[in-house]
């Protein structure tokens, strides 16, 4: 099971500010829902865990993250992460290129191009959910990324009672950061529902 995801998320900060955060792998990983760097092998190799929760279902993956390249001039970062779930029956990998595109002095776009692939039981049974889930995960990533840049943006955010996700805590792939993601989702379903 492979899904391609190309998404653009507007950020309310300058391109340089965003780029600084994007280069901080540990923080970037921390923005992945339920993700955490467990140890650093060297500058470009890390070990970590990711927990994805979809309603009642949850999978947590243990694996390796490799920084394939950092291009300062293009403010672009290329990551590859792969791992197997804790029951050994599923595996996943994500090839992500994230870059920052300046809009104006105070805002920019975070552009993510990624290919997520699934193997094992998750692929056999999750096919129906995989696209949407990967979308949510990316949406949350952007939400958390923004939250780090602009804590205010989170407090200002409407609806759910819950606080913004703490690093490493697996979250409901839609529940928590919903209010924040909503606007981006709207752009996914532009002219459609919601």
């Amino acid at each position: 099971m492979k899904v391609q995801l190309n998404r653009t998320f507007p950020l309310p900060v300058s391109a340089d500010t965003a780029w600084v955060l994007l280069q901080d792998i540990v923080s970037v990983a921390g923005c992945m829902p339920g993700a955490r760097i467990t140890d650093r092998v060297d500058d470009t190799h890390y070990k970590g865990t990711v927990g994805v929760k979809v309603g009642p279902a949850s999978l947590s993956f243990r694996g390796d993250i490799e920084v394939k390249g950092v291009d300062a001039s293009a403010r672009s970062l290329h990551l590859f992460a792969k791992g197997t779930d804790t029951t050994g029956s599923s595996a996943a990998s994500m090839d992500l290129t994230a870059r920052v595109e300046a809009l104006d002095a105070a805002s920019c776009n975070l552009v993510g191009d990624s290919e997520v692939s699934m193997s094992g039981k998750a692929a056999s049974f999750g096919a129906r959910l995989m696209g949407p889930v990967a979308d949510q995960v990316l949406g949350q990533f952007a939400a958390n990324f923004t939250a780090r840049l602009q804590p205010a943006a989170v407090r200002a955010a409407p609806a759910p009672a819950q606080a913004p996700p703490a690093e490493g805590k697996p979250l409901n792939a839609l529940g928590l950061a919903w209010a924040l993601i909503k606007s981006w989702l709207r752009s996914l379903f532009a002219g459609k529902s919601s």
Partner: protein
Amino acid sequence: MIPAAFDYHAPRSVSDAVKLLGQLGADAKLLAGGHSLLPMMKLRFAEPAHLIDLGKIAELRGISQAGDEVRIGAMTTEDDVLRSPLLAQKVPLLVEGAGWIADPQVRYKGTIGGDISHGDPANDQPALMVALDASFVLTGPKGERVVKADGYFLGLYSTQLADNEILTQIRISVPAAGSGWSYCKLKRKTGDFATAATAVMLQMKGKAVAKVAITLTNAGPTVLKARDAEKYLAGKALDDASLNEAARLAMGICDPTPDQRGDADYKRAMCGEMTRRALQAAHARAKA
């Protein structure tokens, strides 16, 4: 296929259940009919540390009328719905819909509340609830709140139900006399999710549509309401031209996930086809 170990709780009252939910927090899952949750647990996709079984709470089961409102306890089974004379008379759409759900054994255990709370876009009740403009009673530590079905479903497995709340009751205003209804569902076989399905509630005024609700199952990350199609049909006669246009508008909001049932193209087309058929069937039943 054996679930991971967990602890089991069977509270006798809603308040006890809410208390437990508060104590156990995120490690607990509510168990209703179990036909979505238990298979997930057997595959070890879900490994809750605690299950809170709502099955022993008598107050959560039953169908009654209060004024112009029908009230259904969240633990009322799909089979109860299917056999309810009250619903057959007042809300026949629910009875028709329940008949399309899974198979007899699953309907005996599966509950209307579980179907709704699960938040799976492939479940049938969300579309039926939104089409009927139902309301849900959510009970939490701070008491009850009542929310509209329309807007309750946020997305894939996500609803407005908070982690510390339980869906306890479904409230449906009895549709106006003469309303037409239909739930048209296309599936590969008994027990399968819908490839596409449409629920319609319809009121006619003479030859023209007075009021219509059109909702779609398994057409996106959650139940979809075909608002454009509804707006378009208002005041129009239901003929080939208007049916085609309504179907086209309904297809426009679909964002189905391709799977073994078909690609997005097919599923979108089937949303259109089910919409057209549901409108026709509802029209045939509506009395102006």
